[in-house]
């Protein structure tokens, strides 16, 4: 109920503005589920990640608001730009953040929507992954280049099951918009038991998309010194890290909307539970190599998603 009441309240108190134009888009973009809500959820997800990971390792872990403190701290530090790097070094994190911030505006919890916004979501999320690679290549360091090339390889690998499972869901819901898919689930039940293979394929690409074990080879800290992140510092690193944290929330929420939607508060709870599951999977896995992940995504997950697509089309 709450997302739909606010626009009414604002209209009553700011009656002149409400007469002149529609405030709903501004609220959707800036507050819920736009900038403010997404930022809060991103920091919450990141804080949960560090705390749960620590507790599972018999440690205490930082307080839940630590990612917020880290962001503020990074903004105050000097951001060094290597000599060999280009203009894209600064713009890659900014474009990455902008692209992931677009996606929550289209969520069916009081956001805007239009037909076909699912396709926009897929492409916009790809932009943020490519920006990771671009940041790595533009940093002028061989470690960054190796990280960037690995990111592109992995993107190429998990694109196939991602696209196929999303198309399967869209065909099942007879709509290419998130609101339409949510509506189809409210009417006919959650998709995860109707399209189980597509669900498994989609969930398996999530660690690769957000940079968690077992598929976080592009950002491997111990091996290639952080890959694309190696030369970033100060505000550029703050923006890049924040973009990653927003990606945690956005990709998990996308999984919930596509396969587990019932209504908005169950969306939040399932999001948290799914995030806990992925933290757990990260904790118990080592990092697999690029060629091994390629085989996994193309052969196994691709075929799995294809099975469901065929099932739903027939």
């Amino acid at each position, binding site marked *: 109920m709450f997302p739909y009441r606010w626009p009414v309240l604002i209209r009553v108190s700011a009656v002149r503005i409400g007469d002149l134009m529609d405030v709903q888009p501004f609220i959707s973009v800036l507050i819920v589920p736009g900038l403010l809500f997404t930022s809060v959820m991103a920091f919450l997800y990141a804080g949960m990640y560090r705390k749960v990971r620590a*507790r*599972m*390792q*018999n*440690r*205490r872990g930082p307080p839940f608001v630590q990612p917020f403190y880290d962001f503020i701290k990074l903004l105050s530090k000097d951001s060094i730009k290597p000599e060999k790097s280009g203009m894209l070094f600064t713009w890659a994190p900014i474009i990455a953040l902008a692209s992931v911030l677009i996606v929550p505006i289209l969520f069916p919890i009081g956001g805007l929507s239009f037909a076909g916004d699912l396709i926009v979501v897929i492409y916009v999320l790809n932009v943020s992954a490519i920006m990771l690679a671009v940041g790595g290549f533009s940093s002028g360091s061989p470690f960054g280049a190796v990280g960037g090339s690995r990111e592109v390889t992995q993107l190429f690998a998990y694109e196939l099951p991602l696209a196929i499972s999303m198309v399967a869901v869209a065909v099942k819901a007879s709509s290419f918009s998130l609101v339409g898919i949510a509506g189809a689930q409210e009417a006919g039940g959650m998709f995860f038991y109707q399209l189980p293979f597509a669900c498994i394929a989609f969930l398996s690409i999530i660690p690769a998309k957000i940079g968690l074990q077992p598929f976080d080879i592009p950002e491997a800290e111990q091996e290639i010194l952080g890959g694309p992140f190696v030369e970033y510092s100060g505000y550029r690193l703050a923006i890049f890290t924040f973009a990653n944290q927003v990606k945690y929330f956005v990709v998990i929420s996308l999984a919930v909307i596509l396969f587990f939607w019932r209504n908005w508060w169950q969306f939040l709870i399932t999001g948290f539970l799914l995030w806990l599951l992925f933290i*757990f999977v990260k*904790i*118990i896995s080592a990092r697999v190599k690029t060629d091994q992940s390629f085989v996994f995504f193309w052969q196994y997950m691709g075929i799995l998603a294809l099975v469901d697509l065929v099932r739903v089309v027939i």
Partner: protein
Amino acid sequence: MEIEAFLSLFKKPFTVKYPFEPSPAPEGFRGRTEFTDDCVGCGACAAVCPAEAITVRDEGDTRVLKVDHGLCIFCGTCQDTCPWEGIELTEKFEMATLDKETVYDEVEHELIFCEGCGGVITTRKHMEKIQESIKDVGLIDKDRATIENLCTSCKRRHFAKEISEAMSLGS
């Protein structure tokens, strides 16, 4: 490992909230080196210290022994070598400080000087402890053995003169 990871969520962490919770060192821990009240100022510890952390300095009529915790390697050789239990490795390990004076541990002793040549004999405390330790030993002439106002060279010269005088008198 998967089950353990899940169950650890509900168990108490293994880490100790030091410094808000105490974390004491066990008995016998080799910590901060300190001089005790039994130190006599003989300088044996300074002679054997592998890191040359203990310095002995004679200033006027005081002898100052100083141990520098920045150089000390906490090996305990000084503790093992000291014949008087004058230096010990305590169990203190919280030595971080902003005040440079606390990095050193000093002890001062009064020196006694030779009446013959004016050189340093040793510290008063050392002489007293030596006399204390030999007082029950069977010596022929206790007074001669405990002359405390001459250094060893002057003492030898003094006895040599006594003996030669005695021999020349006898002859």
